[in-house]
């Protein structure tokens, strides 16, 4: 883990996302797929914590040696600010953080499943798997055309790609899970890697369990520090000896977990939300002002 004042080499809009390339040789050198960065926010803002972003690319060789790329989706103040950062500005980044994906030793056929910008981390993984002579297939998706991350790059990296969008604007209409049974069958999948939001990951986990497929998932649990100091980011993980579970820090013991060991129900129940039904027949005094 290193800290760097990294120059932004270039920025690029990719569909609904923004990609930033940084010069950070010490971090790039050590980075593995699934690991992430903690980026400091500027002074004088009303939000204070670092923002955490997956490493999309780390170039150790060639013309881009020593650079790192990550992708942000402007959904809140931090990612919106990052999306507006310009080339030649500097970012304070700490990384690489967390444990990345493990590569299979013997098994060969890898299926990478991701939705939206979470796919960014898996493209880096795909490259590393290819270097290790694995077969890579992908299922990627998003709400709509705009939020499917780099479908052309996906084609370049993998044998086959299934694209799913909720509105059918690209590929097939549907969710990632709709594609899985057929793809797993067709590609003779031996290992599954997945990234996405918690409900999707939980469904992928259930799918892999029924099929007895080994899998690794990258979990995005909200973090405060990102380097293990605060215990904000825990995920309940069963102990190997069956004696119960531990709340492990996603930032040091993850963000990649074995989904078969994650206690999805313990973890996600707490997050459940109930909507109140609008009560009927309330006193109506007057209409909207203005």
């Amino acid at each position, binding site marked *: 883990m290193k800290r760097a004042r990294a120059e932004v080499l270039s920025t690029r809009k990719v569909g609904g996302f923004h990609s930033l390339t940084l010069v950070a040789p010490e971090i790039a050198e050590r980075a593995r797929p699934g690991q992430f960065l903690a980026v400091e926010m500027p002074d004088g803002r*009303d939000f204070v914590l670092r923002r955490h972003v997956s490493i999309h690319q780390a170039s150790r060789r060639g013309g881009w040696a020593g650079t790192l790329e990550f992708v942000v989706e402007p959904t809140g103040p931090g990612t919106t600010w990052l999306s507006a950062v310009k080339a030649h500005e500097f970012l304070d980044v700490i990384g690489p953080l967390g444990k990345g994906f493990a590569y299979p030793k013997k098994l060969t056929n890898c299926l990478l499943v991701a939705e939206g910008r979470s796919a960014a981390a898996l493209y880096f993984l795909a490259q590393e798997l290819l270097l290790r002579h694995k077969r890579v297939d992908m299922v990627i998706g998003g709400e709509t055309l705009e939020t499917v991350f780099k479908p052309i790059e996906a084609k370049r990296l993998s044998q086959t790609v299934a694209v799913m969008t909720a509105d059918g604007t690209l590929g097939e209409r549907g969710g990632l899970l709709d594609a899985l049974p057929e793809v797993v069958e067709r590609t003779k999948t031996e290992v599954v890697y997945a990234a996405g939001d918690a409900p999707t990951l939980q469904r992928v986990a259930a799918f892999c369990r029924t099929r007895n497929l080994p899998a690794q998932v990258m979990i995005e649990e909200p973090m405060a520090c990102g380097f293990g100091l605060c215990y904000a980011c825990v995920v309940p993980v069963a102990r190997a000896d069956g004696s119960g579970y531990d709340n492990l820090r996603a930032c040091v013991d993850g963000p990649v977990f074995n989904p078969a060991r994650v206690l999805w129900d313990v973890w996600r*129940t*707490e997050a*459940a*939300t*109930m909507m*109140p039904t*609008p*009560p*009927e027949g*309330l*006193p*109506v*005094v*007057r*209409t*909207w*002002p*203005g």
Partner: protein
Amino acid sequence: MPGVNRTLSVDLGGLVLGTPVLVASGCGGSGRETAGLVDPKKVGGVVSRTITVEARKGSPTPRVAETPSAIVWDTGLQNPGIDAFVSEELPALSRGGPPLFVSIGGRSLEEYVRLTSALQGHPEVVAIEVHLSEPDDELGRPLIGGHVDRMTEIVGACARMSLVPVFAKLPWAPTQLAELATAAMRAGAHGVVVVDAPPALAIDAQRLKPALGAATGRLAGPAVKPLTLAAVHEVARALPDVPLVAVGGVRSGLDAVEMLLAGAWALQVGTATLVDPAAPVRVAQGIARYLKGKNLASPADIRARLRLPAGAGTPEVQV
């Protein structure tokens, strides 16, 4: 709920306001200053600055300093005294303005009695807000409203004498809020305002002195919202049937929605009005947008509707 007439109106136990958004005490001027910048008809209500029996010159300047996402302020309750207020400011404050709450403050029971009495027979005053954060000269305590005995005595005296509803603005005594609110209600208050601003100190390190002329002040502005929400939540759970007006840290419509969800019936906007004189209207419009998005009819529909996780160790609020 198509076809249903949506409303922003709230009913504080009989006191009906056009919107749940009031201007907080000390942040509304005399009502004339920002004429033209805000339509008074769209403001739910305005609370006067705190009026005392005698005129007060107030604290030395500077009276305001900025801290992260907040201000520390102390005006020392500068005001012309109740008589001059009634004769000179009251007519202008109420003429064409939103419903007027008058805030009164004192350091002895007698002062509160005199203030309440002077405000009777002025139909333009729709309610009295009792400020209870001054020192107690009679009992020599630092916070007159920070004790159940005095809360009962003072609010009781005001409530018995007043023909208009009396709201107790709870002083910053976080461990005792529910207890103080209960005392105020038992004594006859119509509702509570939760919660007066916490003591705060801003320091000018280069000059080795407090940033304010009065040394310590109190904290207001966006930063205090989570503290207010916790206080509102606590008092509303203890006293779900009591009209509760939240104050502290509201700047946007969503902030206001959060106050309502936590249990407020209405809320006040202080610092945000100093930045944007139209804030009370903007905030109300934000509530309206939210209700529309959720297809709800009125602010009362979200009051105390905060969904608590079952495992959080705290029972769900009954609404």
